[in-house]
């Protein structure tokens, strides 16, 4: 049963996985619910100069200064507009707190190990090393994102010590 998750050695493959489902472009993604701190709207973000475009800046989250990443820009999606429907998922990555902008958040699903398939090498919007696997629920397909790995990738450079988190 462990072979179904190809990419992740750390995760206990036998356990069910609860994921928060969010939409980006036309696709549905899932992120481990335990990493999610809260979901909130997009408020005022202070821009930081000389950082990649998808780092929108920092915002005030109850007194903490939290960086905001726009996953839509990161994944090359068009029309990244910011209005009152824009959703930010606040995630705990290692010791840090990061906000990720997505199109929308739909529901929370429980995936059994059988429902998780290894990620194919092609056809995914994200670079595949951020993808834990593909989850299928009824006729929906979720791209399961390894948020730690994604946030600590060198191009994102949210965290300087790449290895420390992974």
């Amino acid at each position, binding site marked *: 049963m462990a072979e179904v998750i190809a990419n992740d050695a750390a995760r206990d493959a036998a356990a069910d996985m609860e994921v928060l489902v969010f939409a980006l472009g036309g696709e549905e993604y899932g992120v481990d619910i335990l990493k999610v701190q809260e979901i909130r709207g997009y408020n005022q973000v202070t821009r930081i100069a000389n950082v990649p475009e998808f780092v929108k800046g920092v915002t*005030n989250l109850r007194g903490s200064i939290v960086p905001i990443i726009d996953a839509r820009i990161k994944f090359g999606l068009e029309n990244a507009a910011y209005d009152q429907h824009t959703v930010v998922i606040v995630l705990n990555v290692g010791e840090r707190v990061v906000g990720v902008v997505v199109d929308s958040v739909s529901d929370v699903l429980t995936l059994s190990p059988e429902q998780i398939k290894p990620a194919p090498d092609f056809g995914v919007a994200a670079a595949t090393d951020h993808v834990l696997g593909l989850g299928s629920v009824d006729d929906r397909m979720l791209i399961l994102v390894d948020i730690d790995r994604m946030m600590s990738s060198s191009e994102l450079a949210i965290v300087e010590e790449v290895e420390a988190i992974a």
Partner: protein
Amino acid sequence: MTLDIAEFYQTFFDEADELLDEMERLLINLDIDAPDSEDLNAIFRAAHSIKGGAGTFGFTHLQETTHLLENLLDRARHGELVLDRTAIDLFLECRDVLAGQIDAYRASEEPDQQAYEDMAQRLRTLDEQGSAALAAPAGDKPAAKPAKPAPVALPEGMIRTVMISGIAEDKCSTLVEELGLFGDIESQAYEGDTLTVTLAQPAASDDIESVLCFVVDADQLSFGAAQAEPAGNTAADGAGAEDVVAQAVSEAVAAEREHRPQDNRTQEKATAPAEAAPVAATAAASKPKATGKSSAESSSLRVSTEKVDEIINLVGELVITQSMLEQTIGGLDTEAHGALLEGLNQLQRNARDLQEAVMSVRMMPMDYAFNRFPRLVRDLSSKLGKEINLVTEGESTELDKGLIERIMDPMTHLVRNSLDHGIETPERRKAAGKPAAGTLTLAAQHQGGSILIDISDDGAGLNRERILAKARQNGLAVSDSMSDDEVWQLIFAPGFSTAEAVTDVSGRGVGMDVVKRNIQELGGHVDIRSTFGQGTTIRIVLPLTLAIMDGMLIRVGEEVFIMPLGAIKESMQVQADQLKRVAQDKQLVYVRGEYLPLVEMHRVFDIDNAQSDVLRGIVMVIESEGRYFTLLVDELLGQRQVVVKNLETNYRKVVGISAATILGDGSVALILDVVALSRAGRQSETQVQRAALA
């Protein structure tokens, strides 16, 4: 048992640190010619408490060292040992050895054996010589158990019988061992849950209490007297005890009996050894101390700084939320919403008060910092052969604890400098018509949102010519027309040895640049005032806390930044003739006789819609690491105190930005990193110098 005790390790170390500090303070202030017996007693008690705790925890070296020290102190307080400067010096050194030992135990290491042996040897030597001089009894060997003098009558508060209630049998041996420190045990008995120990030699009840306080509570202890004494006469050396009459104590004892029926046996036992009056009397002696202790415990609280910072953070949030509410209600009709507005006004006042109260938790009096210097001055002045009086002013001025700790090193450095290079030798001072003893003044005061710390001496002062000569030698750009202030600032330049430049005293190559950098890192700056032949004052200006900073809000395009106020020298609108364009888009601004590099905010931070015309924007003159540069911004929005928030907690270091803060409307503003901006300006450094020479 071991596990039980391990929990108290930290408490013991903390208390021991405090006791050592207290001991040092008292020793330094001790008047050698007429030592105050209260002080001597206090020093003795401090040593004694440490010894007691060390014994309990099995810190053998610490126990042995304090034991020797305690013997000497005990004799000193009974007037048998005449204290002189040598003795005090030795005690102070011993205090350092003890501090080292405590640090070692804290780090779960064995203390330095050599240091221990040396110190023990020297303490014994002093003991023996003292004994010889005073013709003390021959049996009074230093290595023996605490050599109590044989007084004609038992001193006040001395007892021989100790009763400890409410303890388990397996703890008895430890307790007896503890009590063994006071001399031989004559007899011991364990009955019910009460241990009764009789000592061969009398000991002070409060000493016993302080030894045992690590194991048992004060109210578990009761004492029987060694010999009968009039009740009114038995106050311990503690202050105020005299006021307690025996009757009041009997009442207290009776009251306690009612309150604690389980202790009945103890109390009865206490009265059992026939001498009823002395029991009540010794209870009188120990009672006030116990009450004093419990009130001291409840009046202060050890809390981790993390918890305090968390509270400060939350209160900061509350204040921001409150000011957001205030902005929201601004447009409301006062008649229709009277109650709401009233309530919000109340909230505003409460929030401000709360913030002030919480900030004050982190505040410590400057005393905490100044206390370290009497020792340093004392040691250094004897080493340098100078006579120096230390004067401190404004000890009660409060400053953030984190700041105090971080200002200690720069301050120590400056004090050393003053002593070493500032104040002259007595001969020179006399020759210059000054009193032989120099004065070093440490003063602290509040001024607005800052604290000013002055380190002044009445020494030789800085020598302008020599500094200028040295600066030229080091290749710094200087001119004879520089103002004194500018010349004095030169001594902060990296690699500028003050020893050679300012006085003839060859000294350590002190890094004044490090001092200045440390202070700048804390958001402060250093000023120097000096008159040749009359002295030097170095003034450290610091923000009140690390968490709050004085800043200038500046606007560039649509973005708002914060510039640390201390770095801003002036702001102006420049005229066309002040500008000089050098190659590759670099411009220089001519300000007060100097060409300064221009850093354009909108270029550094890539900001759209910003004012790019230097003549129409505002140019700020910024100082960083002793250099000046100019910064082009759109507008100054005003001065504000901001709460400094770390950007790296959730993100990472950003070039040009030192931290962030949250403005009144809840938005985040970035605090500029002056040093990084100055580097951006320094790229045109070569052009600057060329232009300046042209």
